[in-house]
């Protein structure tokens, strides 16, 4: 990041918001990712050392949202819909068109939803309501989430797990599991690594 919070070779003429911290050794491709960034939290977003956030990742963050991206995380074209808290652990891989949502944004009750939509139509610029209770999402370390997956509010995905492409994860996934399908189910367990297999000394 440049001193004026622009990004080197950014195609979009934007700046990184003040409440975002990007490790000097992380890569953030474009400030277009902040087009829907509305968080006013002090530590709204952290991108850790060695992590890459490529084109197409969208941080759709509500006023109180906090997102923490660990170290050596690879993200490519994910939609982060967050009104409360989403954490992504070290070494996790998030593929194209993945949706991580900690909130449905609008009330499930149709009557209350109508009021929220009438309120949204009076906003300039337009924004759908964010008054719904959100439940944090926790992606632990070394998780791999395949193309087009959706992770729904309140879900924790355990360390080392793999989520197959196009899965919809609505329940917690234990560590070192392979979960696939819509809704996602665990189909097998993976061998946890020996401690000395964590060889990274970077």
């Amino acid at each position, binding site marked *: 990041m440049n001193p004026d919070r622009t990004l080197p070779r950014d195609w979009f003429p934007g700046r990184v918001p003040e409440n975002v911290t990007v490790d000097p050794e992380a890569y953030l491709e474009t400030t277009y990712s902040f087009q829907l960034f509305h968080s006013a939290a002090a530590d709204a977003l952290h991108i850790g050392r060695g992590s890459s956030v490529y084109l197409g990742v969208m941080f*759709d963050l509500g006023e109180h949202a906090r997102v923490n991206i660990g170290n050596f995380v690879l993200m490519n074209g994910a*939609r982060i*819909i967050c009104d409360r808290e989403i954490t992504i652990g070290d070494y996790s891989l998030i593929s194209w*068109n993945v*949706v991580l*949502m900690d909130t*449905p944004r*609008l009330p*499930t*009750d*149709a009557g209350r*939803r*109508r009021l929220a*939509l*009438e309120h*949204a*139509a*009076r906003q*300039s610029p*337009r924004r*759908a309501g964010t008054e719904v209770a959100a439940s944090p999402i926790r992606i632990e370390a070394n998780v791999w989430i395949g193309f*087009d*997956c*959706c992770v*729904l509010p309140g879900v924790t995905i355990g360390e080392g797990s793999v989520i197959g492409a*196009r*899965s*919809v994860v*609505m329940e917690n996934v234990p560590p070192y599991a392979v979960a696939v399908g*819509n*809704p996602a189910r665990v189909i097998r367990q993976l061998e946890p690594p020996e401690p000395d297999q964590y060889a990274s000394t970077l």
Partner: protein
Amino acid sequence: MSRTTSESGSGWSHGPLPANVRIGANTLITADYAFKRFRSKLSPALLMGANCTMDGVHFAIGEGGRVSIGDFCYFTNAVLLCELELRIGNYVVIGWNTTIADTDFHPLVPAERIADAIACSPLGQGRPRPEVAKKPVVIEDDVWIGPNATILKGARIGAGAWIEAGSLVTRDVPPRSRVLGNPAQVIGQVP
């Protein structure tokens, strides 16, 4: 503070609306690509109520396609693929990257699919395409559709239904039911 028109004054952020599009007061349409694939020759081809927000929506409407959308709808980056008819009620919410299609796009029968592939090719100039199955999609009032969902031809989604993220809807959804999965199944009622 209400804003009754877009910066262009037309309701669309990128210029005047096509002549066969009618929208109500305080409805906003964004994105330069909104009408890139809008080819309908009907009039009106797109009829939309008041107070809607169409943020980054693709109106990919074929020559004989007709879309109606009620009041207070809020769509984010939805793709509407219409060759026949999409009928969407009031207070409908559609999440990011959701696709709604009222057509199969190509024929099912293998021989006809070959004819279609040729007709669609750069060498198919003027050759008529075979008939393709189409059925209207109807989405009633107060339906919520999550991100990454797909709604296919002939589906009627009943009032107040809740379509979870990533669902593939191929059949009718009863009013006030909650559906999930591929293919989408009813997993409960909206509380």
